[in-house]
C-alpha cells in the first residue's frame, strides 16, 4: 500500500515538476512598435485629358423619320419632304459618313406628290457639344438626286463637297436614339444600329 502511495505521489510529482521546469518564458526582443511616425498613403494624382466626342453619338445610326424643307422648284417656296432610311456613322476621329440607298423623300405641291430619290455616300467632319452637332465640312460626296413630280423625272442633281458647310444642328441623344433638329425646319429621328461603335 505504501509503495503504491509513493508511486502515485511520485507519478504525480514528476510530470508536474517536469511541466514546471520545462515551462519556457516568452521571448523578448525589441522596443515597442511606434505608430506615431507612420508613412500614410498618398492620394491618386489628379490628371486630365482632352475630352473626346460625346460617347453617345459615336456609332452607326439609321434614320426612321425625317423632315426636310427643300427648294424643289426654282423660284417657289420650299416644300416639306419626309422620309427615312439614311445610314449615318459617327466616328471618334471627327469624321462621319452618310449613305443613301434609294432614299425616297416625298412631299406635296399643289396636291401633287413630289419625290426625291437619293443614292450615294458623303463624308463629313463633325464636332459636338452635349447639345449641338457641328458639321464644318462635307469633304467628299457622290450622292445623286433624282427629282420627280406628277410628270415623272424632272431632273437629277449631284452633290458637291463643301469645305465651308458649317451646319449646326441641335440634338438629343438618349442611348439608342437621337433626335436632330435644325433651324430651317429639319428634324430627324435616328436609331442606333450595331454596325459600328458597339461592343458585344
Amino acid at each position, binding site marked *: 500500500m*505504501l509503495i503504491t502511495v509513493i508511486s502515485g505521489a511520485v507519478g*504525480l510529482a514528476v510530470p508536474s515538476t517536469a511541466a*514546471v521546469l520545462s515551462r519556457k518564458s516568452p521571448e523578448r526582443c525589441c522596443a515597442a512598435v511606434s505608430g506615431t511616425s507612420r508613412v*500614410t498613403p498618398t492620394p491618386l494624382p489628379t490628371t*486630365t485629358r482632352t475630352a473626346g466626342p460625346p460617347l453617345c453619338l459615336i456609332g452607326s445610326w439609321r434614320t426612321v423619320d425625317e423632315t426636310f424643307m427643300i427648294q424643289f422648284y426654282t423660284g417657289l417656296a420650299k416644300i416639306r419632304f419626309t422620309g427615312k432610311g439614311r445610314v449615318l456613322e459617327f*466616328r471618334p476621329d471627327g469624321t462621319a459618313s452618310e449613305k443613301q440607298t434609294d432614299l425616297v423623300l416625298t412631299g406635296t405641291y399643289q396636291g401633287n406628290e413630289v419625290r426625291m430619290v437619293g443614292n450615294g455616300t458623303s463624308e463629313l467632319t463633325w464636332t459636338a457639344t452635349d447639345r449641338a452637332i457641328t458639321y464644318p465640312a462635307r469633304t467628299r460626296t457622290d450622292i445623286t438626286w433624282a427629282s420627280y413630280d406628277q410628270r415623272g423625272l424632272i431632273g437629277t442633281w449631284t452633290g458637291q463637297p463643301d469645305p465651308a458647310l458649317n451646319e449646326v444642328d441641335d440634338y438629343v441623344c438618349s442611348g439608342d436614339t437621337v433626335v436632330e433638329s435644325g433651324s430651317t425646319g429639319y428634324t430627324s429621328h435616328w436609331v442606333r444600329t450595331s454596325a459600328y461603335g458597339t461592343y*458585344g
Partner: protein
Amino acid sequence: MAATAALCGAAALVLTIAAPAAADREEHAAAVARSGIVLVTVKWHGWVRDKVTGEVFGGVDGYTVEASCGGAVVDPNGYVATASHCVHTGPEGGAGLLFDAALTDLARVGRVGDPAKAKRAMVEHALAEGAVRDRPVDRVVEVDRPEVDADGNPTWDVAPATVVDLVAPADGDVAVLKVPRDHLPALEVRSDEPPVGASVLAVGYPDPDDRTREPSARAGRLAAHRVLRDRPFHEVTAKTTPQMDGSPVVDEQGRVVGVVSRDSLAATSATLVDLLRGKGIGAAQGVADRNYRTGLDRYFDDDFDGAVEYLDAVLTVDPAHRQASEYRRLAAEKGGTAGRGPALPLVLSVLGWSVAAAVAAALVLVWRQGRPVSVVDTPPLGLPVALGVEPQPDGEGDADQAQRRERALGDDEADDQAEDRDADVEPGSPAPGGPGAAEGDQGDDAGERREDHRA
C-alpha cells in the same frame, strides 16, 4: 473480446482527451492566421482607348476605380502576399476594372450588346492608359491592417504599398507587396504541399466594406492538386467571395499553404516561396509571432495564465496587435492572470513530492523501529507477541515482516496493503493498454497448443 473492447474504449477516451475537436482546431488555426490578415485596396485611375477606332473612354477626368482583395503578411518586415490579379495592370487586373467602367458608360448609351462578349471585345481591342497616350495608368496600393488603439478600441492601420514582384495572373497569380512597417504580425508560409483531403481554411474579409467584423475563416478541404500553364494550384472547397481573392489558405496550424486565386483555385505556397526567395525575402516569423502562437497554444490548452503571459509579451512589442489583445482579454475573462505562473502543475508538483516524502519518511521510521525484530527474530518492543504466525523460512520472511509492519501501521492500512499484495499476484483482468491483454492472448494460444498436443 472484453479486453479488446476495453482497449478500444480506453483508446477512444485517450483520443478524445488528447485530440481537440475539429471546431477547436479550426478556431485555433483561424486565430493564428487572423493576426496576419490584411485588406489590400487598390485605386486605379486612367482612361480606356480602343486601339482599333482610337476612341478614348473616360472623358476629361478619366475613370477612378477601386478594388479590394485579401492578403497576408508573410514577413514581419512589411511583406504581404496577395493575388497578382488584384494589383496587376493588365486586363485581369486594373485594366479589366477600367474596361468595366468604360463598358458601364457604353451600356448607358446603348453601345453594349452581350456584356460578356463586350468584355472580350474590349480586352481584345482596348488598352488602359494614363493621361498621356501609351503611358501606364495611375495605381495606388494600400494595405489595411486591423489594430487596436491605446484604449483597446478597434482601428485600422492604412499603409501605402509597393509591388515588389509578381507572377502574372494568367500564370501563377501571386504578388508580393511591401509596406513601410516593421514588426508586423506575420504568418508562417508552408513550403511543402499538403496532401489532397487536408483540411484548410480560407481566411479573409468577404465584405471589405464591413470593417467591424473579424476576418472570416471559411473551412474546406484541399480537393486536388492542379497544374495550369506549368504552375501548381490547389483546388479547394472552401467557399470564398471575390473580395477574398488574395487571402491566404491556411492549414490546421495556421500556416499559409496557398493564396486564393479564382474559381476555387488557390496559388500554391510553393509559387509564393519562389517569389519571395527570388527577392531575397526570408519570410521568417518574428519574436512576437512566436509568442503569439505560443500564447494561443496556451489559450487553447486552457492554460490561461500562460496565455496571458505570452500575449502580454506580444503586446509589449506591438501594443496595437488586435488579435493578441482580443485573446488576452478572453484569457483574462477565463481566469488568466499575469505573473501567476503555472498554478496547477506547481501545486501538483509540490503536493506529489510532499506526499512521497512523507510516506518515505514514515517508512524509514518504521523500518528503523522494526529492524531489531528481523535481526533477533524475537517479538519487538511494543509489539504484541501473539501474531499467530510461526517463524518463517527465508523465502517467506518478507511476508512476515510485512505483517509486522501492518501492526505498526494499523489494521485498516494493513488490509489495504494485503489487498494490494493480493492484487499483485492474482492474474486478474488486464489493464487497458498494458501487457495483460497480450498475455491473455498468449494464454489462449498456449491453451490451443495444449489442445493440439492432447489431440
